[in-house]
């Protein structure tokens, strides 16, 4: 699972600072870290980190995401989504794996693809 330290140490390719306001479609092929405001859409084929002071009013698509700020919009995460204790999510989520920390806020629905192992249960052993 993606860890917050990994984002902070790995120097993401796109960083939106705390005083920056973005309006429109923020699309990147690399990691994105948001500490400011984004209204519109965020899309990356890699990792997204939303900082505790960030406010996102946008639909979000990423491979993995850690949300520690406010996010309002549809969230589609291919693999792992972590909502941290300071995170506040209003919107529907679709993700492979989900972790919500105690104290986090989540309002919406969550859909997760069924795991292969659950789709095809093991055959019963012959006596």
């Amino acid at each position, binding site marked *: 699972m993606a860890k917050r330290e990994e984002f902070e140490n790995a120097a993401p390719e796109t*960083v939106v600072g705390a005083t*920056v306001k973005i309006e429109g479609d*923020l699309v990147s092929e690399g990691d994105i870290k948001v500490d400011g405001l984004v209204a519109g859409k965020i899309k990356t084929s890699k990792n997204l980190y939303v900082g505790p002071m960030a406010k996102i009013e946008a639909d979000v698509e990423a491979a993995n995401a850690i949300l520690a700020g406010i996010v309002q919009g549809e969230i589609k995460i291919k693999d792992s989504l972590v909502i941290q204790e300071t995170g506040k999510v209003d919107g529907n989520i679709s993700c492979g794996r989900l972790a919500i920390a105690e104290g986090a806020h989540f309002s919406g629905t969550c859909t997760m693809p069924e795991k292969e192992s659950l789709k095809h249960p093991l055959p019963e052993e012959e006596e």
Partner: protein
Amino acid sequence: MYFYIFDPGRDKELKYFERIQGRLLNLLAESHIEGETYRITAIRTTELLVEQALGAEAKTIIVVGSDGSLNRVINAVIRKKADIIIGFIPLNEGSALGRILGMAANIEEAVKILAGRLVRELNMGKVGEHYFLSQVDLGENSFAKTDPGVWGLNAMRTFMNFQAFPLKLSLEDSFTATSEVLAAQVINCRNNDGCRLKLGDPTDQLLDVLLLNKLTSSQIFRYRKELASGCLDNVPGSTVMHAKKIDILGPKKLPLFIEGQVYTKAPATITVAKEKIKLIVGKSRQF
């Protein structure tokens, strides 16, 4: 054939140039890369000398001078749509382009690298009708690499006088970014020595946008050494974005600097140019 354009430039470089001129010509002859040599004067401009080099069917132009000299030759070559290789011998030890290209300010080393003829095709940035290899600084607040002085106090005094300004950019016609910033740069390539992030790869077809948020006096004091390093990304909270096309929407009349010289004012568009340039580079290049 090699065509040498000497641009002694400012006083400091001129003195150095006078001192090394003879030794440099001997080294070029020893390495079998001697050629025609010309010196830029008020009458014999960069553009005229580039035209002369092309007329003489030179295969390589070597610029001996400052980063500004190289920039002017590159512009003249691109405007002539010439297919020619460019080399660079930096006269200034602090040459950022020299460090980026892996060209030592030590002339013996520089001549060896030129003789090695390792050529790379590099992207250029374009602002208005002007091409640039390094970066465009938006606004008058210059955070070039400076000697921080004792405890970084000299640099801090300068930075304290800088005024923040409200910047509005549009990237790729896809989104707008607005922020009050103390400094902003659009980078095609830069000297990454001492920088936290490796930005400005002139082979990736992208420009990097670096914004330094407005800082309080106490933050300027705290980050004075990071600011004096010239790497705005060393200050926590800086913004980094990437694009092929950046529109500088405001503030209107914001000056855009290249190598310390104003080339245009906002509103303006900065793009990755279609044209590329062939440059001789060293093994210690930063890309």
